[in-house]
């Protein structure tokens, strides 16, 4: 998707001048990103560059110190915490918005006391208020899709990391999210299991879903992303089309980052 034909599309996520400090350490120093409907954005950068923090600010797992997050034009309400930062102003709104954004975590975070089917239907039934029959039907087709239908009665502890992450993706899809947030989805996996997870994510990207993917898999990012964002030291140092960005990096940091990854 080239830059020009995005203009008419709706903005799914807008991050405007995002700052985030942990105590005295400023991790994000003013980041602005717009993700249009159907756009796949890969966020890359070294460790400590703030890429995961940025993703976590979008669904308010971290509260920004300054800045605005908009989901389909609706700004998440924040108010001053009286200490120079912000805090959530409307928990109902945040909960409602969170059910439209699905997050896939580095460490899967499946609920260990539930089998795979129960994990996938949990949010549709107990947050979205769907009927159990309807949720089970959908969960079964999603588990089919990620190749885990036969494991639907299995508990997460009995599965490989790759299987757990695929189940976590099924759980994410079960809420029919408008935007999917991937927080280093393959970083906790053994090398031989990375491929199966990337192929599932790659298929999703082809469906025209809006996705933000924090990743260290450069080849994968180059293949699936419409746009790459390079974060360095809390700011967006460079962004653009994957082919151009990787073949002709402008900033010295990105050049070094690419060569260090290999």
């Amino acid at each position, binding site marked *: 998707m080239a830059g020009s034909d995005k203009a008419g599309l709706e903005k799914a996520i807008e991050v405007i001048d995002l700052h985030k400090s942990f105590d005295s350490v400023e991790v994000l120093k003013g980041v602005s990103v717009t993700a249009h409907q159907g756009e796949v954005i890969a966020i890359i950068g070294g460790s400590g560059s703030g890429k995961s923090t940025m993703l976590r600010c979008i669904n308010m797992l971290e509260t920004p110190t300054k800045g605005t997050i908009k989901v389909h034009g609706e700004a998440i309400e924040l108010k001053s915490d009286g200490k120079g930062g912000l805090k959530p102003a409307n928990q109902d709104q945040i909960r409602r918005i969170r059910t439209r954004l699905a997050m896939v975590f580095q460490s899967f*975070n499946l609920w260990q006391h539930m089998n795979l089917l129960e994990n996938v239907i949990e*949010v549709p039934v107990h947050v979205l208020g769907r009927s159990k029959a309807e949720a089970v039907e959908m969960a079964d087709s999603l588990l089919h899709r990620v190749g885990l239908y036969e494991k639907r009665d299995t508990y997460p502890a009995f599965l490989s990391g790759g299987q757990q992450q695929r189940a976590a993706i099924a759980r994410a899809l079960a809420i029919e999210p408008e935007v999917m947030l991937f927080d280093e989805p393959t970083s906790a996996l053994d090398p031989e299991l990375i491929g199966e997870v990337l192929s599932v994510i790659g298929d999703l990207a082809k469906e025209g879903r809006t996705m933000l993917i924090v990743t260290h898999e450069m080849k994968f990012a180059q293949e699936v992303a419409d746009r790459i964002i390079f974060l360095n030291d809390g700011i967006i140092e460079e962004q653009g089309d994957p082919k151009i960005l990787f073949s002709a990096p402008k900033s010295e940091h990105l050049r070094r980052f690419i060569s260090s990854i290999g």
Partner: protein
Amino acid sequence: MKNWLKLHRIILLIIAAGLVTAIVTLMRWDWLPNYYGDLLSGVWITLVILFFTCILGITLAIPLGLFQVTGPKPLAAACKLFCTLIRGTPLLLQLWLIYYGVGSLFPQIPWIRESLLWPYLREAWPYGVLALTMSFAGYEGEVMRGAFAGVPSGELEAARAYGMSRWTTLRRIWLPRALHRALPTLAGEVVLQLKSTPLVATITVVDLYAVISKIRQETYIVYEPMLLLALIYLCLTGILVVTFRYFENMIPTREA
């Protein structure tokens, strides 16, 4: 079957069979039929006390543990203090303080004497149930604190990220996960609680232990009733262990 029949096992079985035969034939059991009714009622009282003090105790233990993890600080400190006081003093002392202390205070307060609860408060068992409940709550509050704190934060974060309210997260994720983690410990604690119940005999509640004491006093037989008492507690413990194992196996966990 073949592996099972080993020489040392056969010898042990013969010794066990001999012991049982000796106990049955050489000791006096003729008193037993006279006390069937008393023994049954004793077992019943013991089980009722065990059941209700465990249920009430864990109901208290859940907030006691939870508040210690979540705060607010004054509430956490109060819960901590309660658990420390209970765990730091003998159960017998707590029981007597409640029975002789609170129990002897009540009759002096007119409105309590006139209340609908008075017929119960005149009896000994409410004080026994109260003391055992508080004791169970104190110990299990500490167990639940550990269990709540030990639930991986990522799983709670996932609940948050998918729009669960705090209450839904507690009800659907945090509590069931903590209880599941704590179950093996709780099984052991319930067995310990079973063996704390005889203390209520010291405040005139007629549980299994009190029945056995009565038999010994009436028949002047010293050992046989005690052996029977041990056997019954062993059987009850066995039933408890098997029941808890069933619940633990409902959610399989992988051996690390």
